[in-house]
């Protein structure tokens, strides 16, 4: 990215814009900041400062239900991310790299629907499907299936965008240099779309860790995930322990943000092969 030219404003316009900008940043960050601060407050009531303590983190870590939910979340997130990344990448390849095939038009539409469908609708229809039509008991596996069903589409969109920017003469050149299809994919296509694939995987991971609605619909007895478990706790009673687990979840989100930024930076570095 270069210097933005031709964007000069009058000083007062600039000043108003930047004041507005920092107010919005305040709006976006202060609530989170306060939440984190109160996770260290030695008082049962959130909102009253009672001195610094680590005890809520201790409680969180020794709460078996909470840790069980965390483990379930990790399991669901990892499995659904891996599967949806593979499925989404294959779908993107089929849509972008093959001119026409049986049912392509319909697939193109079906592929995008999970992205725009309201989550409640998705949750409700999966619940009906699993319990009324298929002879499946709700369990951690139904949650995983549900998460894959919406994540795969997000992965496909991201990978497809990457593929669309990839000059297909690179693959032709590989074939011209005696590589077969599989080798071409392994040596050329995959390494060049990997930033997109990883970006999609991170999004799938985030979506899975964020989801409350679909999980609430299709979870089996005793197999709750962390966000749904926390959601239930909040509805019952607000405690600083919730602030502690919230801080933990924020921390996970932050790690994912920075990992994704690192990927993007690398992708930009390798993708700009014609700029110089």
């Amino acid at each position: 990215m270069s210097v933005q030219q031709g964007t000069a404003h009058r000083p007062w316009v600039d000043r108003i814009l930047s004041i507005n900008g920092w107010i919005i940043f305040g709006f976006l960050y202060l609530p989170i900041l306060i939440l984190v601060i109160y996770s260290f407050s030695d008082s049962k009531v959130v909102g009253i400062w009672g001195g610094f303590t680590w005890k809520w983190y201790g409680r969180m870590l020794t709460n078996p239900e909470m840790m069980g939910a965390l483990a379930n979340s990790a399991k669901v997130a990892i499995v659904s991310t891996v599967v949806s990344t593979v499925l989404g990448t294959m779908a993107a390849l089929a849509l972008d790299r093959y001119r026409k095939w049986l049912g392509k038009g319909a697939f193109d539409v079906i592929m995008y629907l999970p992205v725009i469908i309201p989550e409640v609708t998705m949750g409700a229809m999966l619940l009906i499907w699993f319990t009324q039509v298929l002879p499946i008991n709700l369990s951690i596996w139904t949650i995983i299936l549900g998460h894959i069903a919406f994540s795969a589409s997000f992965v496909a969109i991201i990978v497809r965008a990457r593929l669309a920017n990839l000059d297909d003469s690179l693959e032709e050149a590989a074939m011209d240099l005696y590589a077969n299809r599989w080798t071409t994919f392994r040596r050329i296509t995959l390494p060049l779309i990997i930033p997109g694939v990883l970006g999609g995987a991170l999004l799938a991971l985030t979506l899975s860790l964020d989801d409350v609605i679909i999980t609430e619909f299709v979870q089996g007895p005793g197999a709750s995930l962390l966000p749904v478990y926390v959601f239930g706790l909040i509805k019952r009673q607000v405690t600083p322990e919730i602030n502690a687990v919230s801080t933990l979840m924020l921390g996970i989100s932050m790690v994912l943000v920075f990992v994704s930024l690192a990927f993007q930076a690398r992708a930009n570095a390798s993708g700009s092969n014609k700029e110089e």
Partner: protein
Amino acid sequence: MTLLDDRTSEEANPELEKKAERAESWRGFFVALPTYVFLVLFFVLPLIIIAVISFAERSRTGKPILGEWTLEWWIKLGDPLVRSVTFRSIWLAFLNTAFSLLLGYPFAYWIATRKKAMTRNFLLVLVLIPFWSNFLVRTYAWRTLLDSNGMITKIGEATGLWGKMLFTEPAVFLGLLYGYLPFMVLPLYAAIEHLDWNLVEAARDLYAGAWKAFRKVTLPLSMPGIIAGSILVFIPSLGAYVTPDLLGGSKTTLLGNYIVTQFKSGRNWPFGAALSVTILVIMMIATVIYFKKGGKTL
């Protein structure tokens, strides 16, 4: 299915060309097949079934009885209660979209017009962090702020401007705005950042004032960002569940929690199915209208 032989020594003819094309086409099909099957099994068929179920009679436990059909649940959508929930949902989603745009545009514009790439990237990361942060946690943050001991309540009481907002409609609105504002800012930023600023300078050169150049050039050219951002905010706002459940009360039920209730304590799955289909239809209509309007202004 016959693949063309790699070492064929045949001359080309239309039939063999077709055969080669067909082989290629089958390859594409097989690459898509696993995802295709998965989506048909766990998306398309469920989507069809939920529409079917919305016409089913309900059993005593609330589950649908397949084979006994009724229009009752679709008629029930006209009930005053259901209508008010629907309109409240659409209204709040619309209001949230409008406010996100109003706040988000100058904000995105400000970030996108910083001179140095470093500054722009830094500010962008500051937007990305809340965007990627856990939604439930971000909503929970407002619950404590708006509660009796919360900072915002205390400020309101001290100034005498407002009281405890938790469990009211303004609280739900604030929560939605907070939750989805980053979804508006990112596409707007992308659209404004990629704008060809020479065009704005050309407008200025052709005697347009700063405001006129903005209105006639910058704004229309950032339309794709406005459309994308609006859809990204409107759709989840319309189906919001977590926000009204945590920040709203019984009088601020939105479609999202109303639907969940039908499948839980309400014990009326077929009616929940009808509502689910309704919300999907509203969302699709809104999307189509938006795209049409956007298409005209472009």
